[in-house]
């Protein structure tokens, strides 16, 4: 193409260079006159036009056209070449001047010029319309148009052309009006007609380009030749009711077929839809009906598949459908349809089923941890309005429901904390991987955990404390330090959800006391780390007592070292004895309170106790010591027939065993009298010694439980492969009691907090009705309370003159300063 363009350009460029003044030169040849005043524009227009012609016609027509042009260059008798030859030759030759004079008479057009030229053009247009070869060269035709325009015949030319096109388009309609026609064939015909119309109009426009660029441009009310063609096509063919319905229905049928899985001719669809949008009736004629059809199809499909498929299948199907529709948009639909189409699909397949989908399938997906399906669910739901809100709500209620089953069942107490941890991990994972770490879901997760974990008062807090105890206790070798640390962090997350933090503290403290006193703590670092976590979470006030317990243990070490020195310096038989006494000195108030049981100690122990008392109180004046026999434990050397052993026993066990040094046969009553141990405690102690694994005593009669008149004898034949033997205490009942006691203490502490809150509120408000006071109390108190308990506290404060009932209104309280 560009080669032809250049060869065409060359002569004109020469003309320009060789001719000094444009105005003097006047050509006889009418075809050249128009081009001359602005030679460059003329030539470039030609080149431009050529390009267009080349572009728009297909390669079949190409050769023919090229032949035309070559004919043009060779045969056109425009004389340009000759003139330029003259001009160049004249210069070097002689000093002769070439003077070009104006014609004496103004040149005139031939009379029937307009009719003749139009006839020529008409012939060409008809040839184009009927797909015959054109008799004239395109250049010639173009120039004919150009000339007519320049001779003020443009409007007639335009009118003629319009008329000609109109009649041709009108004639085309017949083929579409046949009685019955296969839709597919109809569409194909339509497409053909449209394609040829376009092709023809492009060709015609190329020829009449000059008209388009001058006359049409100068008159804004007149549409371009291309637009005129479109307008006529629209008016006479597509706006015909029958044709329009047939074609739109045909298109819809094809699309529906494709939606049902058939392959259809996408290029045909694309071409026809392009036609509709080019004719600007895409929206009104097609889009509305298309969307209605889409809606109907997917509404039915949604209903049907909701019943037939389970949720993951359905979601996958929706995803597939959306992809297909997007592809449809990409391949043939107009992009302006995108929003409404996708929206329609989403609405019919998703929005309509938002809640039923979630109710039907969400819990299953979450139960089975199907992350990929959940991701899909999230992605789909994020497309529709309220989708994520609904999803979030259902996620929330799932957690609450599921969590409740973990928490509420006393049978599952043993595994509750581990299950909670696992559940939290799972849900966290889902929020992170499937829900894109959406903050709303994260918050909802927290809210749900907090809600269900507090549905059962106190027990979760207690079990979490116990769980921590179990992990921090020595002998728990299942985890490395880092694992333990991570576990503690996770537990702290659960702890955060708990309202009754005081319950946790009470149980934690009790267990910590046990760990410290028995020396059973796995690692001081882990203990300290847990303590600092608690401190971070609840503040120094929460942990100051726990910290105090650690301090007590450290101080006790120093005290014991000092005591050893002190005892070593004592000059009596006491120092000769080789009993090793270590005392843990606890600060009252830091530690849990233990029941004080007075027991009778052997003289040797009493002596030791006295020495220590004297030593300690001498060091710390103003204090008193309360010995705690329940917490003491001992190592006994024991001589059996099969060799000697070391027994690790509680103080109570030791006291009972030592009695057998004097006599080897004792009744329950004897032992009770001699030791003064409380009855239940004593029975458990004896049970552990005579009915447990290591039976250093024998019970008569034999049996699992200790009855009133049982007798006990020293089991001299006791054997055990170990040298050091720990005789476990029996604790079953004890824990139950302890647990109740701990809870009781928590409730007592809470009473003070309730009192304080009531007084605070009343002091601020001076007068308040009962209901308002209660609601304010619920806002302030961080642990669960029953209204009845609050009432009791209010009564108590009225009794103590902190407040009074209003004389006129029994429902109102007044603060008493």
């Amino acid at each position: 193409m560009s080669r032809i363009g250049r060869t065409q350009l060359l002569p004109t460029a020469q003309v320009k260079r060789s001719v000094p003044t444009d105005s003097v030169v006047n050509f006889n040849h009418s075809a050249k006159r128009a081009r001359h005043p602005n030679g460059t524009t003329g030539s470039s227009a030609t080149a431009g036009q050529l390009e267009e012609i080349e572009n728009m016609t297909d390669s079949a027509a190409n050769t023919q056209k090229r032949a035309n042009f070559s004919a043009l260059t060779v045969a056109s008798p425009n004389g340009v070449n000759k003139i330029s030859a003259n001009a160049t030759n004249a210069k070097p030759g002689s000093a002769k001047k070439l003077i070009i004079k104006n014609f004496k008479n103004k040149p005139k057009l031939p009379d029937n010029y307009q009719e003749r030229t139009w006839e020529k053009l008409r012939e060409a247009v008809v040839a184009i319309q009927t797909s015959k070869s054109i008799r004239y060269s395109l250049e010639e035709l173009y120039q004919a148009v150009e000339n007519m325009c320049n001779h003020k015949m443009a409007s007639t030319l335009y009118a003629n052309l319009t008329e000609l096109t109109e009649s041709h388009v009108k004639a085309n309609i017949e083929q579409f009006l046949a009685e019955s026609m296969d839709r597919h064939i109809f569409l194909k015909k339509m497409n053909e007609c449209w394609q040829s119309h376009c092709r023809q109009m492009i060709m015609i426009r190329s020829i009449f380009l000059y008209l388009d660029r001058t006359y049409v441009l100068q008159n804004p009310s007149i549409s371009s030749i291309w637009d005129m063609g479109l307008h006529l096509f629209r008016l006479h063919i597509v706006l015909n009711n029958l044709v329009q319905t047939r074609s739109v229905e045909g298109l819809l049928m094809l699309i529906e077929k494709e939606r049902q899985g058939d392959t259809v001719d996408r290029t045909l669809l694309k071409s026809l839809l392009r036609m509709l949008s080019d004719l600007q009736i895409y929206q009104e004629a097609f889009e509305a009906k298309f969307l209605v059809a889409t809606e109907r199809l997917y509404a039915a499909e949604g209903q049907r598949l909701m019943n037939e498929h389970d949720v993951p299948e359905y979601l996958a199907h929706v995803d597939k459908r959306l992809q297909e529709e997007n592809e449809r948009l990409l391949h043939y639909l107009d992009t302006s349809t995108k929003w409404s189409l996708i929206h329609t699909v989403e609405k019919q397949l998703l929005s309509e089923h938002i809640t039923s989908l979630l109710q039907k399938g969400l819990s299953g997906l979450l139960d089975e941890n199907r992350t990929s399906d959940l991701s899909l669910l999230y992605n789909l739901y994020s497309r529709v309005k309220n989708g994520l809100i609904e999803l979030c709500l259902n996620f929330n209620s799932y957690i609450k429901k599921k969590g409740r089953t973990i928490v509420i069942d006393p049978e599952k107490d043993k595994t509750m904390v581990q299950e909670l941890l696992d559940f939290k991990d799972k849900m966290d994972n889902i929020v992170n991987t499937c829900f894109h770490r959406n903050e709303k879901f994260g918050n909802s997760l927290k809210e749900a955990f907090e809600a269900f974990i507090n549905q059962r008062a106190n027990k979760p807090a207690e079990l979490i404390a116990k769980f921590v105890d179990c992990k921090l206790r020595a002998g728990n070798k299942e985890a490395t330090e880092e694992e333990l640390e991570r576990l503690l962090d996770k537990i702290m997350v659960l702890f955060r959800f708990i309202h009754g933090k005081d319950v946790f503290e009470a149980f934690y403290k009790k267990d910590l006391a046990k760990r410290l006193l028995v020396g059973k703590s796995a690692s001081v670092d882990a203990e300290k780390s847990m303590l600092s976590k608690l401190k971070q979470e609840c503040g120094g006030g929460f942990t100051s007592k726990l910290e105090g317990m650690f301090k007590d243990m450290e101080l006790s070490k120093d005290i014991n070292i000092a005591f050893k020195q002190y005892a070593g310096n004592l000059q009596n038989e006491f120092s000769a004895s080789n009993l090793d006494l270590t005392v843990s000195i606890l600060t009252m108030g830091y530690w849990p309170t233990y029941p004080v049981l007075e027991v009778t100690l052997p003289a040797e122990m009493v002596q030791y106790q006295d020495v220590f008392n004297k030593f300690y109180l001498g060091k710390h004046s103003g204090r008193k010591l309360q010995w705690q026999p329940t917490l003491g434990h001992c190592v006994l050397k024991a001589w059996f027939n099969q060799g000697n052993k070391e027994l690790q026993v509680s103080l109570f066990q030791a006291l009972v065993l030592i009695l057998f040094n004097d006599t080897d046969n004792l009744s329950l009553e004897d032992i009770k009298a001699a030791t003064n141990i409380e009855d239940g405690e004593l029975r458990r102690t004896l049970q552990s010694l005579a009915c447990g694994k290591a039976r250093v005593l024998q019970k008569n009669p034999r049996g699992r439980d200790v009855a009133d008149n049982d007798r006990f004898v020293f089991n001299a034949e006791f054997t055990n492969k170990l040298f050091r033997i720990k005789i476990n205490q029996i604790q079953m009942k004890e824990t139950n009691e302890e647990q109740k006691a701990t809870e009781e203490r928590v409730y007592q502490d809470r009473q003070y907090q309730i009192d304080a809150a009531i007084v605070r509120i009343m002091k601020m408000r001076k007068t308040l009705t009962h209901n308002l006071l209660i609601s304010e109390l619920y806002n302030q108190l961080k642990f669960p309370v029953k209204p009845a308990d609050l009432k009791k506290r209010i009564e108590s404060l009225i009794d103590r003159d902190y407040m009074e009932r209003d004389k006129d209104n029994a429902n109102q309280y007044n603060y008493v300063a």
Partner: protein
Amino acid sequence: MAESVQDNVERGDGDNVKTENFFTLKKWNAVAMWSWDVECDTCAICRVQVMDACLRCQAESKKDFYGKQDCVVVWGECNHSFHYCCMSLWVKQNNRCPLCQQEWSIQRMGK
């Protein structure tokens, strides 16, 4: 060794005379709780238990080297006891025991 023990035991059984104990105490890990030796366990000035730090010290959370709050108890000649911090503020206004109105003089201090 084992035999000799057995002998002893048998003899002990037979004669009902103790020559060697079956059990001897080797080690005793005892536990004792300390508290201030006071008649009334709340400080009459700040109404906080004397075992805890007084309100002022709790608020400032003063700690000594061991982390124990340095808020000891003081006994007057009248044997009434208060937080030392509370009492030292009190005597600036009125050098009498708040409970019995006797002239205040320190009998002993807790440590």
